[in-house]
Every structure is written in C-alpha cells, then in structure tokens.
C-alpha cells in the first residue's frame, strides 16, 4: 500500500438479520500503534474484531494485513490468521490442555515446529507473562487473570504482526485486571501493534496512541487520547466518556 499501515479496513459492513451491526467502517492502523476502541455495549466492537480476521466473515468491505487482502476468497486465511493474535473476553483456553499445552499447540500444529522447539518457545512465552511456575496447570486450576495471561502468551507465541484484544479484562474480578493490563502495557512499550476493545480508560490514557469511539456501527470520533478524553469534538463522545468515568473511575 506504500505506507506504514499494517492494517487497513475499508467500508466493512455486517448485519445480523435486521440489525446493522457494522456500517461501512473504515480505518487504518500503523505499525507499532496502539488503538483503543471504546463505545456502548452491543455496538459491534467485538464483531469488528471478528470481521477483521474473518472469524465472522463481513457482508461487505475489504480488510488488508500489510498488503495481503484478508477478505480475498483466494487468500490462505489460516496463514494470515497466524499473523493476527486474538485475545478473547472469556479467555477461550483449551480446557483439556495445560497452560503449556495451550501455548504449544499452535506452534507444533500450525507452525509445524518440532515438539521440543514448540515446548521451548512456549515456556519462553509463559515466562514472559509471568506464569512459568503454573505451566503444568489446567485452565480450571488457574484464576481468571492467569487464564487470560495464558491466552495472551498463546497468541504471542505465534509471533503475530498485530494483536487484537476483545474486552480482555471485562470478565475479570477487579483485583485481577491489574496483572493483565500490566502485560498489555509491557507489550505496547515493546512496540507491538495492538487493537484493543476495552472500557479501561486508565489503560487507554497511559498507553494508547489513538482512541476510537464507536456507536451504532459507526466510528464517531478518532483521535489521540489527550484530545478525546479532555476535549472530544462530538457531543456523544463526551456523554459516553462521562458515563464511563463515573462507572469505572477512569
């Protein structure tokens, strides 16, 4: 594409029945940028992420990762997905595998590494998120925060070009969000390109390069944190931020 955009989304639309969840959404993300998407529940933020890596194929629109078009029917979607890390709200760990097993499985099944190489890399990633001592535990034996960190390690192990987070801390008890946000902040500082759907305004304020406000399937406003949080241009943005800072304390 000739610029430093790693992710390009053009006129993405998705409807579920009569409900127009995404309406001609367009935006780009540059290499190394951290974009935080905020907005009222049910406005299609999760759907947007899922449309980007085609977990939910969009009705209209096109998406590029670097210069590979994800929405092209002829692209190898499995190959492209390896380069997009996805972290789920409810962790989505594979329950029958240990933490180590969860991080390994993508490496030897998809990247076709040898079992030893996969194991070594997996241990490395788990250490990076601070869970080395727990690597033989099963998901049910881990706290929510630990499970989410395993989820992050699992995605990171694939050496993705971009990481997407779908409300990573929303399903966690308040005391546990800290450990996950810390990992995410470290990731951001290390230069990873991230798209994060979240309510955590504090996180956005400290780490985001851009904040995008979405409502009713549209992007309402898009700008740097200082601008959005202090002096948002649109009325709706300010209303939403007001509500949210009351609830979450910003």
């Amino acid at each position, binding site marked *: 594409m000739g610029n430093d955009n790693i992710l390009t989304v053009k006129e993405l639309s998705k409807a579920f029945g009569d409900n127009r969840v995404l309406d001609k959404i367009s935006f780009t993300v540059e290499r190394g940028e951290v974009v935080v998407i905020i907005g009222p529940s049910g406005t299609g933020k999760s759907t947007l992420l*899922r449309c980007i*890596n085609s*977990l939910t194929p969009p009705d209209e629109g096109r998406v590029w990762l670097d210069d590979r078009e994800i929405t092209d029917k002829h692209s190898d979607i*499995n*190959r492209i*997905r*390896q380069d*997009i*890390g*996805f972290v*789920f*709200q*409810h*962790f*989505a*760990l*594979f*329950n*029958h595998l240990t933490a180590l097993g969860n991080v390994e*499985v*993508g490496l030897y*099944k*998809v*990247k076709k590494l040898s079992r030893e190489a996969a194991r070594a890399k997996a241990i490395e990633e788990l250490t990076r998120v601070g869970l080395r001592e727990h690597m033989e535990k*099963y*998901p*049910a*034996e881990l706290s929510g925060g630990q499970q989410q960190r395993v*989820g992050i390690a*699992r*995605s990171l192990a*694939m050496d993705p070009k971009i990481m997407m987070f779908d409300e990573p801390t929303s399903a966690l008890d308040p005391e546990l969000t800290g450990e996950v946000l810390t990992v995410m902040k470290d990731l951001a500082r290390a230069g990873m390109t991230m798209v994060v759907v979240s309510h955590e305004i504090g996180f956005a304020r400290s780490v985001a390069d851009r904040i995008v406000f979405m409502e009713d399937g549209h992007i309402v406003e898009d700008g740097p944190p200082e601008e959005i949080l202090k002096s948002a241009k649109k009325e709706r943005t300010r209303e939403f931020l007001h509500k949210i800072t009351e609830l979450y304390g910003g």
Partner: protein
Amino acid sequence: MFEYFIEIAPQLGYGLLATLLFTFVGMVVGFFAAVPLCLIRLYGRGLLYGIVTVYVELVRGTPLLIQLYMIYYGLPKFLLPLGITVTPYTAAFIGFILNSTAYQVEYMKGGFKAISYEQIEASYSLGMSRWQTIFTILVPQGLRFSIPALSNELIYLLKYTSLGFVIQAPELMTQAKELASTHARYMETYLIVAFIYVGLTFILSKLSDMVDERLRIPGFAPEKIR
C-alpha cells in the same frame, strides 16, 4: 432356594455370557459408529446430515422391541431369497448396535455442545484448519464430557438386552423363562435373575465411575447425586 440356584447356574451362566456379549459389542461398535455420525450431525450439511438425523430421530423415537421384531421377523423376507438366514444372534447384534449407535450420537452431541464456542474461535485464530480444530480441540473434550452419559447408556443397554427374549436370542432372560417353566419355579427364577441384573448394574456403575475419574478433565467434575 440355594440348591435350585446351583442347579440352574450353568444355564444362567450361558445366558449371562450372551447378555454381556450383546452389551459390549453393542456398546463398542455403537461408539465407533457414533463418533463420525455425531460429527456429521454437528458440523455436516445437506444429504448426509439429513440421513443421519432421520436415522437418529427414528431409532430414538421408536421402541427397541419393535426394532428387534422387524429385524428378526422382517429381514428374512429380503435375505432368505438370497440364501442368507437371520439367526437370533445376528438379529440381536444388528438391533442392539443400530439402537445404541443412535443414542450414543445424541449423548456425544451433548458432550460436544458443552464446549464453548469461543474455543473454536480461538483455534481458528491461531490458524488451525477446520479438521485440526475438530480433532485437536473438539474431539478430546467432547468425548470426555460425554462419558457420564455414555456410561448410563452402557447400563441401559445391559438391561435392554433382556428384550432379546422376544426374538429368542439366548441371553439371560430367555434362559430364565425357559428354566422357570421347566422347573415350574417362577418366583425364584425371576428373583434370582433380577438380582443378577442388579448386581451387574452395580458393578458396571462402579466401573464407569472409575473410568470417569481417570479420564476427567481437571476442574470439570459432574455433580454427583447422592
């Protein structure tokens, strides 16, 4: 009553062996047949899906007795001209296998449905293909979740082999009826046989608890009803 029991034990033993044979063959063959059928039922489309669905619904919605009846008395009408005889054994095996398969498909379906959809999404986002997702993530969990229901099925099957009586398959019940009328000791014979079944059920129940313990995914204990 005890001497009577000793007297009839050999014949009962023979019937018991047949009963166990029917039960295990029905269960094991049913299991291996059910896995692919279940996957079709869950993820398939079109004609194949339709056939499997009709089969499963019909077999589960009609009495086993009628099914056995049709196989034993009805199948010969087609096979006799071809020179194939249908023995009680054959009919019993076919009947129990067809029946158990259908039920196991449904129980496995329940086990698979217990897997959160997010895990499927996570698997895809790592770049795994459809088949990889099914065999690496879904099958290992789905089968484990199905174990309680499947062990129930085993116990049900054991008891339902008694219907083999209706098509003269030489299992426990058939022997019981013959012995009872031969010796004209109905109450005792049927009571003894009842206790044999109860004992078998108890043993199978304990065995399947053990299997469940060993294969369970840590953290997913089914609630026991005390």
